[in-house]
């Protein structure tokens, strides 16, 4: 994808950048770049795919739409916001990246993310790892039992599931119940210590949403709606997503 030189005619078009600007408040300040490089200095993806946030924005401004809409770098971006946090001009590079992802044909987007998104759509647990609500319940109860038995002082620890009317509805990233179940315990202890009235749910319990990372707006929304409904069905007041 390397280009030797750029030729700009009298009419330059940065169609992609201009389109994104129309969607964002203040155009995401996308024109305001001072090319200071604070974004590139902090970006974990700088240097991957011969790209960094500053260069990416610059290419958009120069109208090199073909290249930025094809670079795999947009999938290296973690959407962490470190760039916009320190940018003196508050330039919304994450949104530019997001819209670049959206322009990819679904079948060409990275397999890992796509599979995780698809998996989340399989059942109502929304887990990108495919763990069902019942699997989740079993892991939680098993870990809880072990803590109560083996850790003095935590004999009365609770991890409620599907408790109707609880104040907080908690999500949990699938990675914990599936690969590191003990990692869930500290959170329970915190909730217990502060005396929070909380619950997990067997529906919509998974916190992650790979459809969002994939820029699949439609399924992103679908997953959010499933989770929101689960919260509403149990009559919880707050929805706490740990992602």
């Amino acid at each position, binding site marked *: 994808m390397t*280009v*030797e*030189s*750029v*030729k*700009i*005619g*009298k*009419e*330059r078009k940065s169609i992609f950048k201009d389109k994104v600007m129309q969607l964002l408040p203040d155009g995401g*300040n996308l*024109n*305001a*770049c*001072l*090319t*200071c*490089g*604070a*974004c*590139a*200095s*902090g*970006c974990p993806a*700088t*240097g991957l795919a*011969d*790209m*960094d946030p*500053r*260069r990416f924005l*610059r*290419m958009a*401004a*120069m109208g*090199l739409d073909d290249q930025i809409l094809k670079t795999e770098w947009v999938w290296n971006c973690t959407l962490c916001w*470190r760039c*916009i*946090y*320190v*940018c*003196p*001009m*508050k330039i919304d590079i994450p949104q530019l990246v997001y819209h670049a992802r959206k322009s990819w044909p679904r079948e060409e987007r990275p397999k890992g993310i796509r599979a995780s998104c698809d998996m989340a759509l399989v059942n109502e647990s929304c887990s990108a790892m495919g763990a069902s609500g019942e699997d989740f319940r079993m892991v939680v109860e098993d870990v809880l039992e072990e803590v109560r038995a083996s850790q003095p002082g935590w004999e009365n620890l609770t991890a409620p599931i599907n408790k109707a009317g609880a104040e907080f509805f908690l999500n949990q990233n699938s990675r914990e119940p599936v690969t590191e179940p003990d990692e869930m315990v500290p959170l329970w202890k915190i909730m217990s210590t502060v005396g929070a009235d909380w619950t997990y749910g067997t529906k919509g319990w998974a916190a992650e949403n790979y459809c969002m990372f994939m820029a699949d707006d439609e399924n992103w929304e679908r997953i959010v709606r499933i989770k929101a409904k689960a919260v509403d069905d149990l009559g919880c007041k707050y929805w706490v997503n740990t992602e």
Partner: protein
Amino acid sequence: MSEVVDVSGEVGNFVVKVKKNPRYIDMEKCIACGLCAQKCPRKVDDEFNLGLNQRTSAYIKYGQSVPLKYAIDGETCIYLKRGKCKACEKFCPTSAINFEDQEEIVDLNVGAVILSPGFKPFDPSGFDFYGYGKIPDVVTSLEYERLLSSGGPCMGHLVRPSDHREPKSIAWIQCVGSRNTNRCENGYCSSVCCMYAIKEALVTAEHIAGEGLKQSIFYMDIRSHGKDFDRFYESAKAKGVRFVKARPHTIEAGQDNCGVTMRYAQEDGQVMIEHFDMAVLSIGLEPTTDVKQLADIFKLDLNQYRFAKTSDFSPACSNRPGVYVAGAFQTPKAIPRAVTEASTAAVEATTALIRSRGELTQQKIYPSERSIANEEVRIGVFICSCGINISGIINVDEVARYARSLPHVVHVENNLFSCSADTQEMMAKKIVEHSLNRIIIAACTPRTHEALFQETLQETGLNPYLVEMANIRNQNAWVHQREPEMATAKAKDQVRMAIAKAALSVPIERTKVNVIPKALVIGGGVAGMQTALSLADQNFETVLLEKSDRLGGNAWKVNTTDQGEAIRPYLESLIKRVETHSNIQVLKNASVTSAKGSVGNFSGTVQVNGGQREIAYGVAVLAIGGRESRPEEYLFGQDPRVITHLDLDAMLRDDPASLKKAQSIVFIQCVGSRDERRPYCSRICCTHSVKAVIHLKGLNPKMNVYVLYRDIRTYGEREDLYRKARDLGVLFISYGPERKPAVSLDGKDLTVKTYDPILRMPISIAVDHVVLAAAMEANDSHELTELYKCAANADGFLNEAHPKLRPVDMSVDGLFVAGLCNYPKPLNETIAQAKAAAARAAVILSQTEMTLDAIKSFVTDKCDGCALCLDVCPYRAIKLENYQAANGQGHFRIATDKALCKGCGLCSATCPKGGVYVHGFTMDQLRAQVVAALEDVA
């Protein structure tokens, strides 16, 4: 210790309520001995050193404080807070402590007000990613100044805060709290940080000896836009200061919380992780916190950043008549502009109050001087104890006894405080009583107190130069506190040396020159016209010379000011006022052909339309302007589509339709500036370019505009224009001098080729027009510098006497400089400098006669005209003339010009024959001191 709380009335007659906060120390009584501070048990952070060290509740701000009077800080004083202590009161030798001191409101009746409340350094605590306040070795630039300063907490031996070790690698991060609308609201550039960072790096290099010092400045654009600033920048590069065009993202603490680690991306995208011993945040300037309150009290308009709102045509005038602004209160600026524009504000005030000049000030009258020509030398010695400041270390009685034994001494006494008003009276009596004709004061330093004693002598009819001081406090008792015997011996030597010198003192006359209350202004551009008008409005007759047949100069060719105000209407009204003013005589097609004389009293000829006339004047202002250079590159002159800024302004005026049709325009900056031939920044082109591109985008929003630049230097609030240009989609592409853009013709099509360092790719752009930011150059000043013996710098710009402290005076007294001939500057700064020149000139013109300092060189009979001294005189105050000696033989001899001479004595040190001396410091006097100093040495 005072602040304004209310104001009423209007220009000519304001009543201002001022609250005087209690100082708790009587300024009349305080002798600045510092005992109160030594004895005060309460330690608090020293705000002068930004809390890097501590002071006591009884304090002075800094060693050279003016007034040098202590104060007690009521917020922290133990007695004032808890009712017990008063340690200072017990030890104060003059009973100056006054805990009864009360807050006081006074009404001041004034005709005008000048506001210069200054600025507040930006507080970077809110920028969590830089770790300021958490990582010990991250400091602000102002803290760093204190660390470097010999008056600061490290006494000038730079160490880093974490482990007090000398740092070997230091990083500066620019634009902290400036040019940032995300983490703060300071969209403007603070104007001074690039330069002070470079200065700090260079000063650090002087502090830290040995190899291996690594200094890096992380920047966005280096804005060295002032006179000789680019040379300074280049010299820093040559001395090894590294400039990195990058912004680190986060600063993290180094190992053991010492030093810092930063990750940054170079311009080519490569990521570097680097450790530094220290990081300095180059913080910006903000309006003071109480600026809103001040604006409310005075009903002033502030702009969006809370700086005072002013017009480019009258940069010192607020919206309220009679209230003027100066300094960083108006916009962020460096010292030279602050000093210049303070004079601008002063002239606005004097003009408003012109009818009352001199009403409330008066000249002191002394009795006529008594001749001592036929008197024997009778010396009186007054030895001061300064409370216990001197007598606590030095045995003053012994010194007094010793003084009585010395030749010519007829009277010796010891005073508790020689400077007090009652001692002065007593001293005057003793002078008369004992017919004293030389006076020795052994006390503090002549630098602060000589004038006071000179006045005492004058009141008794003695010539003021018959007093000599022996500095036995500052340079003896205070610095030898642990060796009282040595100190006493030194004091005796000091008194003996003073007596030896005084015995040879003779009365010296302060030369007076009559001032011709008339000004000559050379140059009829905006600078010259504004100066002339300001002087004329102050009732001084002014002659304005213009080389061409039309007033106005470059201003005809530029459309708007930086703030976007139309220049034509202003220019037309200015010309009209100048041409019709009864105090101004405008001479067109005119130039100076000869000049002689000096401050207050110049004369010479001017050529007007081929004829000669004689004029005499007290001061001259040089405002001969500058011009846009003609580029020699980028196809300029070969293709009509390649134009300069002034060409563009003409097109925007006369033919906007053709520009509107353009689809693509490229601007190239620094054409002929910052290169070998003109190693300076032309200062105005960056702002002019961004202003122009905004205009063009207004004509046709679809137009593609590119600016190829080295550093964008839209200093101060001009940064808003740069931001606006970017927001409109203008692309700014940087280039380095080693990789300049190229303009070429492809058949009929004009193409610009350059390299984008961010894309890391060559770019070629098809364009309709190329606009060149052609360098500004000064008009030729050669003839004038010859005539007036003043100087221009290597770039041809006329030099000021001192770039910081006397930015509109020239090195020759009575000459002033304004406008482009001094250095390229935008219209508002030109107007400010022009009015400042009028202010400075008015200081001279408002006196009927000027008293010159008496310490001047004079020729003796031994001069044989060898002329060795002519070349060493830095002020060109010496010239040769024919001299008829007493024996009838004629030969050359030098003549010194008292008005030009500054008394430095280079001539007397050069002369092999004793042909020229300096009054008060003759060879005999200096030799007498040397001999006296070494009298006891075997």
